[in-house]
């Protein structure tokens, strides 16, 4: 089905800015698709229900085009690598339940695979701490309330949403307080076993008022995977995300959108090994008195790609942000970091620090870094520091002089510490 999705013809197509047809796509995917989904037996006819919309959405994508390599967030990315990735038709969805049945015996754990959500047994039923709205099983009216959070933009979220318009929603109700902070919710983003198939997930996490929650996200892509996750941090809430992405032979596009209500706190810790192509985008929308911390520690393996775009928009007062990303590039690795602060005229007392440090382990490594600070007010504190360096010869000699063997390993570990 997706064999030609990333063919050059899509990527090369210019994106018309005045006639993007996003509204049409939006209406189509958010309303029409959900009509008629009322009973739980829809799971059995999952493919049939969505087969036609898939094809229609693909046609839309062909019209609007995929992200342009010249777009800011893809400036240094090797998008051309996607040209050559082929995708065979996906397997029947019912098979997923069998393949990922292991999650049932776990505790506080979810599997997200191609829009299907599978949960451990303790999360089923009337759980006061977590409410799961599964599009396929039901809750369509509630779903529509959430779908309005999905914004149409020029990045890959359009494509992800088109492939996975059945949005799954995880709600952490106010009553859950700190239940999922002490015992984090583990979210596995996986592929099914169909070799070469593309899987997509659109997911919303709603952290309600005054809740403190922690997510342990594990991304393992054995084939193509596109994730579009929206995190709503209601007033006074705290969300901590511990995301690990490991190369499992596939490629990954992960768009995360954070909607931060007043007095909410967001902390993201991520580690990544890269893959044949990995793009991780964080879009952070701050209101007021938000505290945002993004810590990235990425050791990009030999020959892998890792591209990150972090964009924080602040249009209100008293926001704090600390973006601290360190990348290590092994031989033939290709990485890019683009960080952007957009601080509006009314966003006084914005306090932001953006750091990106890169360590190149080989002359065959390519690493790019670009900080962008668009500040429209004077009453702020904002600084950035972006560096690309090689192994420090003095440090290397110091370790050698004490008889240490595994010098690169130690210096990488200490750099990422």
């Amino acid at each position, binding site marked *: 089905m997706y064999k030609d999705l990333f063919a050059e013809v899509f990527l090369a197509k210019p994106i018309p800015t005045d006639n993007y047809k996003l509204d049409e796509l939006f209406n189509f995917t958010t309303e029409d698709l959900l009509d008629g989904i009322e009973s739980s037996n829809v799971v059995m006819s999952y493919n049939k229900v969505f087969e036609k919309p898939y094809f229609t959405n693909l046609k839309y994508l062909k019209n609007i085009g995929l992200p342009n390599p010249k777009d800011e967030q893809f400036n240094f990315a090797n998008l051309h690598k996607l040209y050559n990735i082929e995708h065979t038709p996906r397997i029947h969805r019912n098979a997923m339940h069998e393949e990922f049945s292991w999650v049932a015996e776990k505790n506080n754990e979810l599997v997200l695979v191609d829009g299907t959500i599978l949960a451990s047994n303790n999360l089923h039923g009337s759980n006061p701490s977590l409410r799961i709205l599964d599009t396929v099983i039901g809750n369509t009216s509630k779903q529509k309330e959430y779908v309005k959070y999905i914004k149409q933009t020029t990045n890959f979220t359009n494509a992800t949403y088109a492939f996975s318009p059945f949005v799954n929603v995880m709600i952490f109700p106010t009553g859950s307080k700190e239940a999922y902070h002490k015992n984090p919710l583990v979210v596995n983003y996986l592929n099914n076993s169909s070799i070469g198939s593309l899987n997509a997930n659109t997911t919303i996490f709603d952290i309600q008022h005054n809740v403190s929650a922690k997510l342990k996200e594990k991304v393992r892509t054995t084939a193509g995977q596109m994730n579009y996750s929206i995190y709503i941090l209601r007033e006074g809430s705290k969300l901590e995300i511990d995301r690990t992405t490991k190369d499992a032979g596939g490629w990954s596009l992960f768009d995360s959108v954070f909607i931060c209500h007043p007095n909410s706190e967001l902390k993201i810790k991520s580690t990544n090994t890269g893959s044949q192509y990995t793009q991780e985008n964080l879009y952070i929308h701050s209101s007021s008195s938000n505290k945002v911390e993004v810590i990235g520690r990425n050791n990009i393996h030999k020959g892998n790609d890792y591209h990150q775009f972090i964009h924080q928009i602040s249009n209100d007062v008293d926001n704090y942000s600390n973006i601290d990303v360190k990348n290590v590039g092994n031989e033939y690795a290709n990485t890019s970091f683009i960080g952007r602060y957009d601080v509006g005229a009314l966003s006084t007392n914005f306090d932001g620090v953006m750091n990106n440090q890169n360590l190149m382990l080989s002359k065959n490594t390519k690493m790019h870094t670009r900080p962008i600070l668009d500040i429209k007010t004077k009453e702020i504190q904002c600084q950035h520091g972006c560096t690309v360096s090689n192994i420090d*010869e*003095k*440090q290397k*000699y*110091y*370790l*050698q*002089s*004490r*008889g*240490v*063997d*595994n010098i690169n390993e*130690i*210096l990488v*570990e*200490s*750099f*990422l*510490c």
Partner: protein
Amino acid sequence: MLKLENFSITDIFSNVDITFEQGKTYVVMGANGVGKSTLLHGIMGRPDLDISGAVEFNGTDLTELETDERAKLGIFVGFQTPTSIPGLSNFQFIKQANKIKAVDLKENLDKFRDISTQLGLPAEWDKRNLNTDASGGEKKKNELIQLLMLDSKLAMLDEPDSGLDVDGIKSLTEKLSNWKNENNTLIVVTHYEKLIDGLNPDAVVLLKKDGVQIGDKSLADKIFSSGFENV
């Protein structure tokens, strides 16, 4: 025994012939810029130095050996300005250098903590980042800890006294005297009279651009009274 023959480092000094014998203590002196530190790092095999001549340690030709291979033979160099490595703790560094196994971890950690306490270093010194956010004196004490924790046969210390306070100098002298025995060799670059007195060296080596002058402790006394050019 460490033997240097026609040992030269391009643009620094040439034709150094000297034998440092096992069981003895040496003090190396010399004018600023003559290459005292470079001599020690040349023996250690610092990769950026252009070295010629012969260097042999306990019968092993060091010429073709890498720095880490020399270290594994028991050669230790104490840096004048120890290198900072943020993210690597002081004890982790020792653990890596000594390849300490899990079963021996506690014993080694206790030893590390004992020494650091004796040297007046702050609590939890073992967890602090290597030579990061430390004073000059603390870094020098850290070098001393490394010497005492590693199984070294030849210690070459580059101005170990610099940055140390009065108590620190006293501790340094005591620790080095205790470390010294008939099976190892101590070479110290210093111009600090009290340290020289405390170490009571077997020989004083005056390094010059074109070789060395060797004498007993009275050579140091002459240097202190007359200066380098008049000895």
